[in-house]
């Protein structure tokens, strides 16, 4: 029996083995066919064409959306004021202020010749700040995102650019909320690589308007030369949506108010004037190393305080209504020079150093009659004046600074100085200095700052110190008698406390992406 079973088993095993071998061969053949198909398909692929296609898609998609960027800073400022009272006593006050500042930038280019740029900002002291509710000037539009207040998000920039070429002249036209803070020169202390539009020495504030720029470097053969016409409105003479409801949240609402005609956004006697500006920026030269830029402007209807409802019983203690009125016009200009890289290959240190110097002037042109504090004190019945003078007054300012490499790679050290004369008046309300604009100072201002990268360019730390030594009062005020320059003795004679100096130490961490 065993003799029969054994050959049968061997035969079955061999037959099975031969069957498996056939199946394996078939599978190998099928795989060979598939490999051949894959090789053919691969041979037909054009890698370069695919790369080009991916780049095309990337280029299209990158321009097919709004780009956002973030600029966020946490800072601690120690501010200190040294003062002299009318009696000659010295006094001081100081404070430590924590702030958060967020700027959300955006940009889009839907067509080759059309660009939109915008920025929203919130600049807040830590926690609640009651002054935002109490003071009408706290959230003023000129410095809405440049002076800390509450956490309200405000418009900082919103404009479109339309550009093209007229022969060899490249031009652009733009309307909207201007990129008018931290401009040329002041971009260095602000830690911004690219300056905004105007010269920061005499214009650094938020406003709306238009600009028309013409690059004439090709037709003149002078590197970087351009002209830019700037138009702006710093205040609109327009009342509220419900102008008569002035007593909505107070006590002055009368039957006359309730029954009056409602004329939204019309003008009334208490409105501040339309405050307009036209200017010309002329970049004379820019070859990447040497840059010379000038500006000249005229501002119409500068706003100043008009004191009304004067009881005049006790002018030192009684309160008055104050509205803002047209007190005159102001012209101004600046010429600024910057060297970005001193010499040519003398040393790495000098190649990476920046030096600048700037001169600016302002000139008042008083008009109209308004009530001043002196009117309130019964000293006159109203007067024509600007900055406390009925004459046309000229002021000037000089501004210089240097920024050099720090102790370690990519760190920067900056030192700046500026001096303003008695009647110097700038539009630098948007300068981000808690003690008030240093560039508006009638006196001497010094600044030193040190910036270092923490995580590349995305997280930086800065320590800065600003010290202002005032010669006259009224440096950062409006254009009326509140901006009158008085020296220490004159201030004492007028019963006013004189701020001798102010300082601001700031330590900050800044995230940008």
């Amino acid at each position, binding site marked *: 029996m065993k003799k029969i079973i054994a050959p049968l088993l061997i035969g079955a095993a061999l037959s099975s083995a031969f069957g498996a071998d056939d199946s394996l061969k078939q599978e190998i053949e099928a795989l060979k066919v598939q490999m051949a198909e894959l090789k053919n398909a691969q041979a037909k692929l054009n890698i370069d064409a695919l790369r080009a296609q991916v780049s095309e898609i*990337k280029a299209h998609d990158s321009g097919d959306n709004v*780009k956002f960027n973030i600029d966020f800073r946490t800072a601690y400022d*120690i501010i200190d004021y040294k003062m002299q009272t009318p009696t000659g006593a010295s006094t001081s006050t100081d404070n430590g202020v924590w702030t958060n500042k967020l700027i959300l930038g955006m940009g889009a280019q839907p067509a080759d010749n059309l*660009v*939109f740029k915008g920025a929203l900002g919130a600049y807040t002291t830590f926690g609640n700040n009651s002054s935002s509710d109490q003071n009408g000037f706290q959230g003023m539009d000129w410095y809405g995102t440049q002076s800390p207040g509450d956490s309200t998000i405000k418009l900082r920039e919103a404009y479109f650019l339309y550009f093209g070429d007229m022969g060899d002249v490249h031009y652009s036209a733009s309307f909207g909320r201007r990129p008018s803070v931290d401009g040329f020169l002041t971009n260095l202390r602000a830690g911004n690589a*690219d300056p905004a539009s105007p010269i920061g020495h005499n214009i650094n504030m938020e406003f709306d308007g238009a600009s028309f720029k013409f690059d004439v470097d090709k037709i003149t053969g002078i590197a970087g030369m351009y002209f830019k016409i700037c138009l702006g409105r710093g205040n609109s003479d327009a009342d509220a949506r419900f102008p008569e409801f002035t007593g909505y949240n107070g006590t002055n609402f009368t039957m006359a108010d309730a029954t009056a005609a409602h004329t939204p956004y019309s003008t009334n006697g208490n409105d501040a004037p339309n405050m307009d500006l036209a200017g010309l920026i002329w970049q004379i030269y820019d070859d*990447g190393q040497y840059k010379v830029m000038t500006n000249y402007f005229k501002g119409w209807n500068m706003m100043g305080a008009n004191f009304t409802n004067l009881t005049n019983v006790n002018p030192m203690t009684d309160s008055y209504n104050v509205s803002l009125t047209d007190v005159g016009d102001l012209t101004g200009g600046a010429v600024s020079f910057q060297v970005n*890289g001193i010499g040519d290959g003398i040393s790495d240190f000098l190649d990476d150093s920046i030096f600048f110097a700037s001169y600016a002037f302002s000139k008042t042109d008083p008009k109209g009659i308004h009530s001043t504090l002196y009117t309130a004190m019964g000293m006159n019945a109203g007067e024509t004046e600007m900055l406390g003078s009925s004459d046309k007054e000229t002021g000037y300012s000089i501004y210089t600074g240097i920024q050099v490499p720090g102790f370690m790679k990519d760190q920067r050290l900056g030192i700046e100085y500026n001096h303003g004369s008695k009647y110097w008046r700038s539009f630098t309300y948007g300068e981000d200095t808690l003690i008030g604009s240093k560039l508006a100072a009638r006196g001497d201002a010094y600044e030193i700052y040190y910036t270092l990268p*923490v995580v590349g360019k995305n997280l930086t*730390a800065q320590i800065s110190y600003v010290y202002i030594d005032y010669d006259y009062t009224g440096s950062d005020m409006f254009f009326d008698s509140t901006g009158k320059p008085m020296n220490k003795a004159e201030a004492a004679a007028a019963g006013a406390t004189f701020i001798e100096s102010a300082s601001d130490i700031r330590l900050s961490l800044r995230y940008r992406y």
Partner: protein
Amino acid sequence: MKKVLGLLVSAFLLVGMMSTSAFADAAKGQKYYLKYMKDGSGMNGAKFATQHTQAEWKALFDGKAEKFIAEYSKKFPGLDAFLKGDKFEKFMPDIRDFCIEFASDSGNVPSC
């Protein structure tokens, strides 16, 4: 307040010691472009950088930027001396960053 200031200044110095290593700078690259290359190329920086995609610029600047030097010396003979000189070798990382930052597919929106 003086204690807070002392603490913060100490933290600042500590952060300074921990700061990260050097990086190339597109802003510096823009400066070098204006100074050394604009006249030779006859176009502004924005236009120059959009000639290539980011990947193309990276390929051109690979190594010691031999491909970039070859292409642009031929394309703009006025750039030849600068591109083959010591200054370009020194400033090349910044110029490279500038080109990549504003490349045609960078999505960067020009400020004009």
